[in-house]
Each structure stands twice: as C-alpha cells, then as structure tokens.
C-alpha cells in the first residue's frame, strides 16, 4: 500500500505529491550532575591531582571513582592520590569521528592503568606516531594549560590533554595482566 494509492480516492488530493518523510527536530535541555564521587575526582583534576577511591571491602582502587565499588556494591570513600604514571594495557586508533563530538581524527584511544589503580583510565595517547604506541608502554599525563579565559580551570577530564610516553622500559606484563 502506498500513500499515492490511498490519496487516489480523495478527489481534492488526487495527484498531490505525497508526503513520505518529515523532519522533526527535538531538543531537550538537561542539567547534568555527575554525583559526589565524580565531583571529588573532577575537582582534584583542577589541581592536577589524580584522585581515585578505594573500596573498603575488596581494597581495589577505582579511577575515575563512581561512588560505588561495582563488584562489592558498597560505597567507596577512601581517597587515593595516584601517581602521574601508568601503563597502556590496550588501545585502538580511531579514524572516524562520531557526529557531534568535537575531536580530530585519527587519534589513539587507550586504557591507561595508573600505578596503584585497578581499572584503566580511558585516555588519548599523543606525542608519538600511532604505530609506535604499544601495550605495556609507560605513559604520563600532559596537562592542558589554563588559558586566559580560565576555561581549563573548570573541572573536566579535558584537563588532561593526553598521555605521552615516559621513555621508561615497558612494564612487566604481570603488573597489568589482570587490570586491563
């Protein structure tokens, strides 16, 4: 059944160019709040601190913390300042940008296991050709300098521009095998 067939029975509309598609924009405005644990983490970033949280039950350290240990189902509360060095546990090279995302392609998207953490932080790797990025590589954050408008002093993960290699030898695979 087609629109034109249906319209054929209506004298006033016989032969009218049928509507088959309609564009309907929709916009909803929200106020996003990341919650207490993420706020603690994000505020620490403005001081160039990497603040994880430890689960009181299993003692694992989460960064970014989400307020709850997902395996124990209990609140994380003990803050842990993590060192500014970690290991690439896996990565990919993104060659295609998602619509609406303000990002230049290609870029290297990696899991960086900060020393002392038990989950990888999702981050970009820069400062080297992409074909030299590898699993086990030791990396450190490159912080974005606040600009005159002070925009970068706002709490955001964008405070870390990317991670770059430290030049140290690769990490022992046993040190990160379980914590991709």
């Amino acid at each position: 059944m087609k629109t034109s067939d249906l319209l054929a029975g209506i004298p006033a509309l016989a032969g009218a160019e049928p509507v088959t598609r309609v564009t309907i924009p929709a916009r909803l405005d929200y106020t996003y709040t990341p919650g207490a644990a993420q706020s603690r983490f994000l505020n620490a970033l403005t001081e160039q601190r990497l603040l994880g949280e430890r689960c009181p039950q299993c003692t694992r350290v989460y960064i970014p913390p989400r307020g709850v240990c997902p395996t124990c189902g209990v609140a994380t509360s003990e803050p842990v300042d993590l060192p500014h060095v970690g290991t690439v546990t896996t990565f990919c090279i993104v060659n295609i940008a998602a619509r609406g995302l303000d990002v230049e392609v290609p870029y290297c998207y990696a899991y960086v296991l900060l020393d002392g953490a038990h989950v990888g932080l999702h981050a970009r790797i820069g400062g080297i050709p992409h074909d030299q990025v590898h699993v086990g590589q030791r990396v450190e954050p490159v912080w974005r300098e606040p600009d005159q408008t002070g925009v970068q002093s706002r709490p955001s993960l964008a405070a870390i521009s990317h991670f770059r290699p430290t030049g140290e030898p690769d990490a022992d695979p046993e040190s990160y095998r379980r914590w991709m």
Partner: protein
Amino acid sequence: MSAAVNPAAVPAGPHRAVGQEPVAVVGVGQTRHVSARHDVSIAGLLREAAVRALEDAELTWADIDAVVIGKAPDFFEGVMMPELYLAEALGAVSKPMLRVHTAGSVGGSTALVAANLVAARVHGTVLTVAFEKQSESNAMWGLSLPVPFQAPLTAGAGGFFAPHVRAYMRRTGAPDHIGSLVAFKDRRNALKNPYAHLHEHDLTLEKVRSAPMLWDPIRYSETCPSSDGACAMVLTGVRGAARAPRPAAWMHGGAMRSEPTIFAGKDYVSPQAGRDCAADVYHQAGVVDPRRQIDLAEIYVPFSWYEPMWLENLGFADQGEGWKLVESGVTEMDGDLPVNPSGGVLSSNPIGASGMIRFAEAALQVRGEAGEHQIDGARLALGHAYGGGAQFFSMWLVGSERPDS
C-alpha cells in the same frame, strides 16, 4: 580469570525447574533489513515482522494473550517508551504489554521474558517483537552523546570494542587475517538469506582484507551495518504447538547474566557473565559437550573478531583456540559447527532486533524452515546476544524435539 564456571552460576538440582510449561516457537517473522525503510512508519516496520510471525503460526491477533517488546535506547528513534504509541499496531490494546531494555542483548532478553510468561503458565500464547529504526536518527550519535566533564573519546560501538579486540589478538597470538575470514564468511552466508541487509555479490576476501581501518584493529569491512529492521516470534506451550501448522522449535534452555560495566579485573575478552550464562543454558539442556552436541550457533558478532572471542567464551573452543576453528573452516556453512548461517549481525544490524534475530534464526534452523541457508539435520541450535560493555548476555538453546520427550 579462571576458566572454571562460577559455581553460583548454575542452579543445583534438576536440569530445568520442575513443572514449567515447555515453550515452543511456532511463528517467526522478520523484515528485509535495509539501511533505511523510507516506506513505513515505526509502527509499520514492527507490524510487518509481527504479521509474518502470525502468518507463520496461522494465528490472528485475537489468539495473542500478551505482547513483549524490546529495543535498544529510545534516543535512536527519539520516542520515549515507544511501546505506548505502538499498542494498536501490535494488537496489544486490552492486553498486557511489557517493554524490555537490556542494551544490545535486548532482543534475546525480550524473547526470554516472553518465554517465561508461557513457562510460568501466566499466558498461553505470547507475541514478542524487537526492532530498531536507525534511519530516524544516527546510531553513532545515539551511542556517543557527549557527557559533560568527559573528554570525547569513543566513537560509537566500534571505538568502544576495538581495544578489546586488540587485547584478544595479543592474548592469543591470532593472525591478523582471522577477522577478514569471519567477515567474508558471514557476508557470503547472507547471500542465501533474503532478509539480510548486505548482499554483496562481488565481495572478495581481498576486498575485505584491504578495506580501511575504522577503529584499528577493526576494518570497515569487519563492521556491522546500521539497519532498519524488526523481528517477531510467536511463543506458546504444548497445546499451542499441537495446533501449529508447521514444526515447532522447542526451548531447551534459556538464561540471562549480567556483570558491571567497568570493574577491577573485568575480562573484556571473555567476560565471566557470558561463560556463566552459557553454562546455565547447557546445564538446563543437558549439554555437556557443546562442540559435539550443538549443531549450529547464531552468535551476536557485530565486529568480526567477536566470532573467535565468543567461540571461546561459549565453550566451543578452549581459551586461545577460537581463531583456529575459524581458520580451519569449522564455522563455515559446511563446517561441523556452522556459525551465523544467516549472515549474522555483520550482515544485518537493527540493534534492538539483532539479538532476537539470532534467537529466531536458531529456531528456524531446528524447524527446518531456514530456506537456502538451512543447515541439514539441525536438531539443536544456540541463539546468543550480548550488550552494554560486553556485560549483558542472553542465550537460548532450541531443539527440534520437545525437551521432556
């Protein structure tokens, strides 16, 4: 991670809960999956699959006691809880209607929720439907809505899963060409499936191998398409099956398992939830050696490397050995464990429906109703779906014989 099954995953006692009504699939319908169904409304798309399922079962709307519908995020079509607007199209007015959402696994979960209504004898005959009309918006947009305070990092599902694929390659030493073999196989299988989205008659293995990297190590050719499509099934019990005009597929086991999105020690390559889910389903069906006892599998493989990964996760291959099954042709249409004879998610991906299509294709095979992509003598088949951060799993085993016979 230990390969051993978590003991809490498998209930003790009888294989299946005592006294459940056996569940039969007596009707299957799906749309021809395409990138954009410009000729139908959202309701029209679902309706097409539902009508085909009813016709297959030779039933009318009046024969349906309840409707269970599933889809992935509402943002894909921009309709919040669209089941409300779809009540008339699915003949649900004056009936119970449930809406399931378990991310990418939703098509499978939806079928299992519907099956439980029959198994619990709450309803006699249930229609279950899953869909996605991705052309109404843009899947990459829907999956990558910017979140304040985060740096824009992932680009759709491919960007999310590519690091896990790299981890698999590194862990197992699988050669680079395995992903291409899977993609080539599935796209060739799709040529035998009139409902498949991609019908690439001129595809060669060389073309698959030389396609550009979208999310290195995942190539364009190893990536699922974005589809409009719907799938529906009619589920019923013993009496309903006796009246059915065509052979039924009988459910021998069904299970869902979930684990957190991100956690310390998560095995992204072979998630424990997937292993536990498979172990539960096999246990229910009395399967002790899946590789020998299961005739074929419809597995949720949106990126080709997930075939070897899931072969290991599902116990069809030992850890690190999945890619060898692929390389040796075991999962080809004429191999001894055909995987995705329908062409799989790599050939059609209406996201919310993709899981149900896996379940429905498994049912078609054991009913002997799969047409040109029928696997001869298929008696026991696995349908599999996963979603979220490889954290939600749903599976069923369907057979040509009644489980209690």
